[in-house]
């Protein structure tokens, strides 16, 4: 082939589009830059963007379509469910898939998907970081665990609950899911209050997080809020405003100060006129990592690419990373942030 076919798959329409579209933008930015510099090993990179609406059944069609178009590597999919459904098809065709956002632990840990890698920490890893922080640094003994019933949020929450209970240091006083998109969360907030929790640990994304924290502050409930990297997003601070002050969220290390990260955000603003959305940096990094691997391996063969991913470190907005043999990124140190004066500050 005279071009490298770079697929991007994820939710680009429907209710989850806001998680998928930033990924497309990230790929566009990076690839435009790469092509402007003469491509990779003399080959131009061609972008193939396909929507899967985050539905497994559509994802299989999307994957078959990409494969039949001869895709070499795929950035995506966005949701773990869709990813799981699509992976066997890519595996069959020997295509490397790297997701910026699919966090289900099984994807890497089960060993079923050798062609998969990701630039985001799995649910359990994050839960561990958050739980340790809550217990050891903050010293809480009563924690309410709340999630958004989604794949990611509930996965995170279940691990958090397990780790909390296993630690024997704290009691999970509440474990419940809220309905995403519901117009009002005051009942669950009253329940949190009633439970006597000292902190809420939330698994899910920033829209729900900001609604819950907003409602807690409205109800004059002053308990701490600890969450995951679905929440560690500037949109959270924008939407929740002053209510977000003091909230904790885990995420990859100090990305905001990383020059690459600052640069990526600037590029997005230049090209699209807006701030980037969720998982933009993960997607940007994944694109860099995959292109780097192709460059170093000088091939798009799956085994060669995997080897390159595991050996060649690459500088990305989320840090200097490489991948373990299961596909999880190494070097994405995780830390906990707190919102201070309208900014996430690493603790």
């Amino acid at each position, binding site marked *: 082939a005279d071009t490298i076919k770079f697929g991007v798959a994820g939710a680009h329409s429907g209710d989850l589009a806001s998680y998928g579209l930033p990924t497309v933008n990230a790929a566009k930015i990076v690839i435009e830059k790469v092509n402007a510099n003469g491509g990779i090993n003399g080959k131009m990179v061609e972008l193939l963007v396909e929507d899967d609406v985050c*539905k*497994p059944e559509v994802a299989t069609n999307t994957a078959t379509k990409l494969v039949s178009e001869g895709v070499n590597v795929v950035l995506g999919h966005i949701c773990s469910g869709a990813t799981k459904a699509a992976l*066997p*098809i890519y595996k069959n065709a020997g295509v490397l898939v790297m997701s910026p956002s699919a966090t289900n632990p099984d994807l890497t840990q089960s060993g079923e998907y050798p062609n998969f890698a990701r630039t985001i920490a799995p649910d359990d890893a994050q839960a561990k970081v958050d739980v340790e922080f809550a217990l050891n640094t903050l010293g809480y003994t009563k924690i309410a665990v709340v999630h958004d*019933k989604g794949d990611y949020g509930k996965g995170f929450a279940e691990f958090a609950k397990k780790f909390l209970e296993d630690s024997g240091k704290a009691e999970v006083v509440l474990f419940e899911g809220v309905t995403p998109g519901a117009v009002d969360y005051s009942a669950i907030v009253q329940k949190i209050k009633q439970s006597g929790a000292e902190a809420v640990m939330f698994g899910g994304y920033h829209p729900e997080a900001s609604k819950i924290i907003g409602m807690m502050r409205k109800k004059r409930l002053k308990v701490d809020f600890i969450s995951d990297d679905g929440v560690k997003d500037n949109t959270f601070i924008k939407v929740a405003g002053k209510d977000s002050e003091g909230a904790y969220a885990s995420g990859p290390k100090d990305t905001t100060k990383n020059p690459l990260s600052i640069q990526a955000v600037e590029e997005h603003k230049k090209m699209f006129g807006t701030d980037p959305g969720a998982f933009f940096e993960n997607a940007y990094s994944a694109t860099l990592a995959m292109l780097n691997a192709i460059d170093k391996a000088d091939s798009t063969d799956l085994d060669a690419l995997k080897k390159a991913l595991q050996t060649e470190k690459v500088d990305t907005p989320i840090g200097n990373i490489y991948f373990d043999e299961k596909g999880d990124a190494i070097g994405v140190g995780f830390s906990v942030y707190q919102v201070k004066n309208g900014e996430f500050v690493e603790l």
Partner: protein
Amino acid sequence: MFSLKTLRTGVLISLWFVFLTFPLMVIKVDPLERIIQWRWKNALLVGIGTFLIYLVVQYLNYRKEHQPPAKVEDTKDQVSFIHKFIADPIQRKLLFGGLLVIAAIFPFVVSTYQTNIMITALMYVVLGLGLNIVVGMAGLLDLGFVAFYAVGAYSYALLNHHFGLGFWEVLPIGGGLAAIAGILLGFPVLRLRGDYLAIVTLGFGEIIRLVLENWSEFSKGPSGISNISRPGFLGMELSLEGSILYMYYIMIAFMIFTIFVVNRLQDSRLGRAWIALREDEIACQAMGIDKQKTKLAAFSLGAFWAGLMGVIFAAKTTFINPASFTFLESAIILSIVVLGGMGSIVGVIIGALVLILLPEYLRALSEYRMLAFGAILVAMMIFRPQGMIATVRRTYRFQKK
């Protein structure tokens, strides 16, 4: 052709749309950076676009009005052309034979991707035919059809996961469980009419989905069930292409079976009772028809097909989670039935092919895909309010005595 007056109206309409879309299309704000972006170009685009669309519509109307007025019989013929065509046994055999041959060689002339989406389309044909029993024939507006689909899919996924049961073993179980679910839903809601029924079925669909989502111990919750086995062929494990091919033929067989059954039902004592029930419940009862039994039969049969397709669905994607069974799915299946032509088998088939293949072929439009899909849905309804193919009732011949 375009008089000054039409042009003036066109300009006015364009201006109206410019006004209408003004805040959303032209202004974009960033509340934190406190930036206002004025995208005047969009207003211009909307104006010109509307005007062009208006001209096209006018032109089409003009053509329609100035065509030599179709003779009364002519138009009637057109409506049921397909039905007329297949009414003749020889033509019918030819047509079906031809279609069968095309269906058989289809996967060998197109890519795996095309075959794959054709499988999906065929699944929706069967789903549409199933819902057609409930909505098209019996006239019960069901907005929660997807619940039965979910029952089938989870039956296979869970039985396969926990007990290693195979596709063919679970197929009847999945269908049966869905049918039972149909009866369970049917019982309490028999008294409800029209939109009251619609909302309860919608609720039922949501309840099933929410239970699957929340009852993690049972269904693995939102993270779903993966690695569901594909159907084995004589005990062999098939390659991916092989199993897609196999799946395709299974679906062809299924579709033929479904058409066969639904066709027979339509012209049976039960089928007539359904249609009568749809037309007038009171008269129906006065004719001695047991309303409850007849409705339950419709519900459970419709659900049965959905259950079967659920099993196939799980086997095809090898992964399922509750996100696949949302209200939108029910809405799409319902659209298939209505768009195709309520109660018409041919109509439902065409409706399913159009509605499922359309978004796939609209992929070229990338982010405008769903926008176009919505617009086309509206346009098709306006263009063919009765659905694409009208139903025809069976005619009988008798010797004059």
